[in-house]
């Protein structure tokens, strides 16, 4: 049996586990995949988080990707970080940089972290103009300051984590230059229509020719660029034998090798699928994380042989395996059909036709906008029509 087939049947414990520690966030990024903003009052306590780490150690989950929300906002974040690395659970955490002061940067570079900590600074534009458009005013400067603090403290190899969008695909070389300047590694990931991302996906997701640009750039210059196994749908740009795939597992790992723990202990099939449909259980009420991982009916189903549906007719199916489940779900496409960004163009008809985008099942967005909210201004192509315009035919175009 090939290794990839073992992965499709699921492993005894996840390889790649994401743990969103809090839904609280100082920013209100337009495309936030966890719809974060406000802290959930049911958030796991420090003791409960420690118990989760103990269990991850027993299961030999070697590292967790910690995110949020903004995880460093939790007052016990630095304690939990140390607790994890002292229990053989390495930590990669994603942050917008807001709490990465010179003192914290020095802590991260110190022996207390034992070199088991990776820091990912989110940056969705290589310039303030492009970044702040989706992440909010001032967020570019915050991220750059954090990178500078890390470099000054002697923390080596921070990651600059970029969600690839229509607005920033043209900046890939600039991102690499930024990474080089701060002794960092570039990490590129795919924009998912998850969380608030569903609201802006139509405007932000890369256009077909940009997908090609991204693929070509990764093939030419991507040797030292991390992708989080994010772009396996691009493998179909290569030959049908799959030889054009980017490094990585190149399959949907949801519930098989990947999953997500949210701030209240709910377990979902993947970080991009925080929705009732992909809810496997809760580690507080269903007997712990290991029990949910091993026995959840949803995960059992995801590990059973999947039919490729319409995609099995396609010569590239072995390359892309039908693409990303979450991307299909949140754009209202059938899960056994092509990815909404299928590079062979097989989803164009389905996207243009009648489809129902699923309603969000949870939302921690701030109820009132703050000064950090991004303002995605666009030039209007025609003047607005007021509701009380005088003519009864105002705005009517036959």
């Amino acid at each position: 049996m090939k290794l990839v087939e073992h992965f499709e049947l699921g492993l005894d414990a996840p390889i790649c586990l994401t743990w969103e520690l809090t839904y609280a966030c100082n920013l209100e990024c337009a495309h936030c995949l966890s719809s974060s903003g406000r802290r959930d009052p049911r958030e796991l306590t420090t003791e409960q988080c420690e118990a989760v780490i103990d269990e991850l150690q027993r299961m030999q989950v070697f590292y967790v990707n910690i995110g949020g929300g903004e995880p460093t906002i939790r007052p016990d974040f630095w304690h939990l970080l140390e607790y994890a690395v002292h229990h053989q659970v390495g930590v990669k955490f994603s942050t917008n940089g807001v709490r990465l002061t010179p003192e914290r940067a020095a802590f991260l570079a110190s022996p207390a972290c034992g070199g088991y900590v990776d820091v990912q600074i989110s940056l969705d534009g290589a310039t303030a103009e492009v970044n702040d458009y989706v992440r909010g005013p001032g967020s570019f400067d915050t991220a750059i300051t954090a990178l500078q603090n890390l470099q000054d403290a002697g923390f080596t190899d921070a990651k600059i984590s970029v969600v690839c969008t229509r607005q920033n695909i043209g900046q890939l070389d600039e991102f690499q230059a930024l990474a080089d300047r701060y002794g960092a590694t570039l990490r590129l990931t795919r924009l998912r229509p998850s969380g608030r991302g569903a609201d802006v996906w139509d405007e932000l997701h890369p256009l077909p020719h940009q997908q090609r640009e991204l693929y070509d750039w990764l093939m030419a210059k991507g040797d030292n660029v991390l992708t989080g196994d994010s772009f396996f749908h691009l493998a179909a740009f290569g030959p049908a034998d799959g030889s054009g795939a980017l490094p990585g597992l190149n399959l949907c790992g949801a519930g098989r090798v990947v999953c997500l723990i949210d701030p209240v202990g709910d377990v979902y099939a993947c970080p991009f699928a925080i929705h009732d449909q992909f809810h496997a259980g809760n580690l507080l009420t269903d007997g712990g994380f290991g029990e949910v991982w091993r026995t959840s009916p949803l995960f059992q189903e995801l590990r059973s042989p999947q039919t490729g549906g319409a995609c099995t007719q396609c010569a590239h199916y072995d390359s892309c395996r039908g693409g990303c489940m979450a991307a299909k779900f949140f754009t209202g496409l059938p899960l056994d059909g092509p990815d909404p960004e299928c590079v062979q163009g097989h989803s164009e008809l389905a996207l243009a036709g009648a489809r129902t985008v699923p309603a969000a099942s949870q939302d921690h967005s701030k109820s009132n906008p703050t000064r950090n909210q991004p303002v995605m201004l666009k030039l209007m192509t025609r003047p607005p029509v007021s509701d009380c315009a005088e003519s009864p035919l105002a705005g009517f175009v036959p």
Partner: protein
Amino acid sequence: MTVQLDEHWALSPSVALRPEPFGALAYHFGNRKLIFLKRPELVAVVRGLESASDVRSALVAAGIPEAGWPSYLTALEGLAASDMLRRREGEVAA
């Protein structure tokens, strides 16, 4: 990086092995490398390296027929190249 039959090797101190249906995952906490050991026999060899006096006796103890040794040596060299295995220097084979 070559691995010879009469050398003494062992898992690096920062490496952990996690059993899986296909064999095991080897994770290196220092360089963050994750390597899949795709055969249970290879896992047995790797686990036996430390207590064996040399690579040859680890292969014998794991029941690997001599005809298969070259491919196991290649696999061990691959692991050594990622610092998953380290040579025990200065120790004389018993």
